[in-house]
């Protein structure tokens, strides 16, 4: 049986290498086989037949950043929970209590985030709509 981590994970590495080779090879194969006819119109980004306006790399809603940050917190929490759940029977009630407190703290943070409206996607529209209405009136 393999003993060291290097030996244990070696097949995973090989599998990853083969997977990359297969995926890359398929694209390369299609690139070599397929016919290529280029023209400026065809190389435009797809915009339902219209000429695209401006660069696509504009600013986007800050909500996406917020969700990413909240995700980071919760993913770290999940990662903290993983080692505990494997041995939670051995750790006993003390471990349970400590973990309960930890989850409790995270939940208060979650409550705060919720109340601040980070998770409300429809509320963005509600906040913007009066402003839009005002502009239309003017």
């Amino acid at each position: 049986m393999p003993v060291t981590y290097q030996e244990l994970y070696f097949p995973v590495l090989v599998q990853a290498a083969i997977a990359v080779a297969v995926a890359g090879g398929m694209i390369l194969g299609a690139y070599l086989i397929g016919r290529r006819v280029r023209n400026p119109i065809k190389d435009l980004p797809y915009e339902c037949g219209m000429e695209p306006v401006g660069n696509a790399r504009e600013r986007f809603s800050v909500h996406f950043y917020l969700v990413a940050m909240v995700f980071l917190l919760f993913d770290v929490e999940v990662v903290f929970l993983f080692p505990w759940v494997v041995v939670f029977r051995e750790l006993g009630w003390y471990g349970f209590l400590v973990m309960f407190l930890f989850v409790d703290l995270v939940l208060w943070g979650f409550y705060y985030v919720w109340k601040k409206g980070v998770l409300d996607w429809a509320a963005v529209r509600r906040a913007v709509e009066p402003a839009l209405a005002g502009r239309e009136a003017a």
Partner: protein
Amino acid sequence: MQAIIEHPWFLPLTVGIVIIALFPLVAAYIVLAERKLLADFQVRLGPMRVGPHGLLQPIADALKLLLKEDVIPAAADRGLFWFAPVISTWTALTAFALLPFTEQLHVVDVNVGLLVIVAMSAVGVLGIIIGGWAANSHYPLLGALRSSAQLVSYEVALGLALICGVMSAGSLSMVEIVQAQLERRVWLAFDNYGLMFIAFIIFLISAIAETNRLPFDLPEAESELVAGFMTEYSGLRWGLYFLAEYASIIVIGGVGVTLFWGGWLRPFPNVSWLEVPLNVVFPLAFFLLAALISFRLSRRLLRFSRWRALLMAATGAALAGVGLLFLLPVAHPTLSALFWFLFKVGLFIYFVIWIRGTFPRFRYDQLMDIGWKYLVPLAMAAVLANALVGMLRAT
């Protein structure tokens, strides 16, 4: 030769290579099954032209994709555009290495197998966001942003649901998780007096969201975003994204089956008199029934074309042959374990297709609400409740 076969890396590497070699074909036939099933739900016939009852359709599709022109928009970031679908496929295919098909038949069994799979699926998000960004077009960027926010949101719920499973099993190794279910005499989905079923339902919902399937297929909401992050992709590059999607369905199905449905174990693994009916008679009947249906279809096809009827009959014969293999005592333990694993994964895939044929797509704010406001708190509660019950049972 003997030295090669007995080498500890021989079995893992063979299994890995076989998986990667077979996977594109399997994915293509899952697509055919999906099209046929959806057609059936909508009272249509589905693909019927290529081969008998569309049996050769996947091969025709693959050839078409291979021969398609390789278009890269002028504004795109060429390197990343090239690279993104490869990341998606790579992560999905690598996660296969951790799936325990049977007790022996797997690439590796590492002590943190489940964590490695979760990590691979988290890296898979990169393929989508890079792909959408690299195309430098409005729809793909919006699709990629939505998609990554969705995947990231449901990953929390998925992780918490998995934690409940790990808590019952007491291990992160995929093989040990299944062995724990044999010891505890229960599939983990029904453990802790039914409390685990909540975790299982959360897992199911977030698994469907994680694989971008309808009702959660917001990333490629055709009605508003053309094809989401895949809009600029064509030909085999698009094919790779497609492949990655089906690979991740199988992987997440495998994880669910391992964690909640007892992996390669047959139903009621501790009831010994069910051994023969469930491990021999059921698979045999399953394959013979499929063969019988094929033969009947082939007789009907004979009126239209001889080669189609022949192909259908050959399919039937192959199915019957696979069924008869279950009577061989030599291959039997591995074969029936493999059958149960694949059968359960097949059930999961059928379920996912069924859901797709049933539910309309969610709106984006509904999607995020379900993820954060319902699933995450519920999953947290499930973790704590299961921990409490687990502690009470242990003491």
